[in-house]
């Protein structure tokens, strides 16, 4: 790494260092804002997201008292973005949480027990890795009846193999530590050993990975909605709004651009948070950075 004194753009070096500390804060603040608005949606002084007014069809930003304009059916885009956040975040976060729990269980079973159990679990996962992630999600969601629950199920299923692989590596490393051996020697039962020592020590890398995945899952989940496999009209989520807006792309591009922008910002925020968590938890990367 170039050292800041010698490098002409050292000022930028400080700016970027500040951003490295500020970036995760901004990301967290943004997500907190979106989540708060989404939760408070029913009590906010905003229009009904399903209320279609033909006279406000594809209204431009700031016209007809609509801050962010109207969509192809004359519904308030701002209200739909806020209400849509509920589903868009839920279909990314809920599957990641469920998949993390399932994967911790599978990963610890494979990584700690090892031997035949490891073999069975990992060879089964190999089958899932033979599918591109998005293909499997589309196939599962496409076979089931479209709906939010379907989206959550589909995304959970495709996540489990990826998270389990991380959990298994993590659990395997923990299992070979001396404190595990010491606990076993002092007569801890398998249950206590797994719950009190293996789980808390194996979990952090898995949680970091899951946070980063949330970003990608916002994109994939909204993608399923975009294809019409998730939330059904007239309900709003960002992916479905992108698809709705696509119909009037020529006349009212903002109906497509705004919900897509929300997906990008949310995905960026989760990636930034995940990356910051990873650096905070990985002492190796800290040392490398300060050298």
């Amino acid at each position: 790494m170039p050292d800041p004194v010698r490098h002409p753009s050292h000022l930028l070096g400080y700016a970027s260092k500040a951003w490295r500390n500020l970036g995760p804060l901004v990301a967290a603040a943004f997500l907190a804002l979106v989540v708060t608005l989404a939760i408070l949606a029913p009590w906010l002084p905003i229009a009904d997201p399903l209320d279609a007014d033909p006279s406000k069809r594809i209204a431009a930003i700031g016209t007809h008292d609509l801050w962010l304009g109207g969509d192809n059916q004359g519904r308030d885009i701002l209200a739909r973005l806020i209400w849509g956040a509920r589903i868009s975040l839920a279909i990314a976060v809920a599957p990641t949480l469920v998949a993390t729990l399932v994967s911790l269980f599978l990963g610890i079973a494979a990584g700690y027990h090892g031997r035949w159990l490891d073999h069975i679990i990992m060879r089964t996962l190999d089958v899932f890795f033979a599918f591109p992630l998005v293909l499997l999600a589309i196939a599962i969601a496409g076979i089931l009846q479209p709906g939010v629950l379907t989206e959550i199920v589909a995304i959970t299923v495709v996540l489990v193999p990826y998270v389990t692989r991380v959990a298994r590596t993590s659990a395997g490393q923990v299992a070979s530590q001396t404190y595990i051996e010491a606990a076993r020697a002092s007569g801890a039962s398998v249950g206590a050993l797994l719950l009190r020592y293996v789980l808390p020590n194996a979990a952090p890398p898995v949680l970091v990975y899951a946070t980063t995945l949330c970003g990608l899952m916002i994109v994939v989940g909204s993608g399923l909605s975009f294809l019409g496999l998730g939330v059904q009209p007239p309900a709003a989520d960002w992916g479905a709004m992108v698809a709705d807006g696509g119909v009037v792309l020529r006349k009212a591009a903002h109906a497509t651009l705004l919900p897509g922008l929300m997906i990008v910002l949310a995905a960026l925020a989760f990636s930034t948070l995940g990356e910051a968590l990873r650096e905070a938890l990985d002492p190796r990367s800290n040392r490398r950075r300060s050298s």
Partner: protein
Amino acid sequence: MLLFLLKRLAALVPVLLGVSFLVFLMVELAPGDVTTLLLGPLASEEAKATLRKTLGLDQPILIQYAKWLEHVLGGDFGVSIATSRRVVDLLAPRLLATVILGGASLALTIVFGVAVGVITAARAGGLVDRVTQSVVLVIGNLPPYWLGLVLVFAFSLQFRWFPTSGMRSVSGNGGVTDVLNHLVLPAVTTAAAPAAVVAAMVRAAIIEVMGLDYIRVARAKGVPRRTIILKHAMRNALPTIVTIIGLQMGYLFGGALFSEVVFAWPGLGQLLYTSIVGRDLPVIQASVLAIALVFVLVNLAIDMLNRALDPRGQHA
């Protein structure tokens, strides 16, 4: 090399069996009754039971799977419910379109990903690097279906440079230039996010190699920086770069699925989408299987390439 290929192919057999079983099971578990789908809602229970028997649906699931697999291996994917055509006839022309889009996107991913990665690594810490890093981070998070629409808005509707959809124009000659013209936007849409991720990872890989002793020696000898990066560092980072590109294949395939739908590109992804909308189960089954098979083969090719590039692993 040949032995390695044979070993890898042998290891693929159980995986592909698993894949086919999963695809088979997926349709078995689908809600709704196939006999109702074929005979209509008014069919009598008796007629349904007869059909179930003729189709072999009354037999244990493993027997059904074995029979299905026997047909699939013989290239028989059944008949499309929506079009009454043989599924394999629907699949074949789609495969070519997908390979064209996938190949073009892969080429863009490699060229832009590696070029941007190398350039930013060479100027690590500089202004160009920092700005590019931020842009790359944003591009890496762009949803392909949205990027596709944004590109259509900008380059088809505003500037009218490229067509909005399809693979050949109705009025055009349908020749190579026509297809290329239609290919630009979907390929860029598909390649954008993977290229960004490749750029970031290639940058890190080159920076890592640049810290090694043999690079310092070359530098001390006075070898020009450009030569060091392009010849010395690149050669050593190449296996890592191939691995990095390989890791993005899943992402690239996913992006292509969305691109095909957004741009009505007549490939396997669009076939999958239309068959899902029409609940055409045999076509869903066949297109999922076909895409997964292409994916597995591409990954195998990347493994082989890596093997050829990195002789160190040859005895392992």
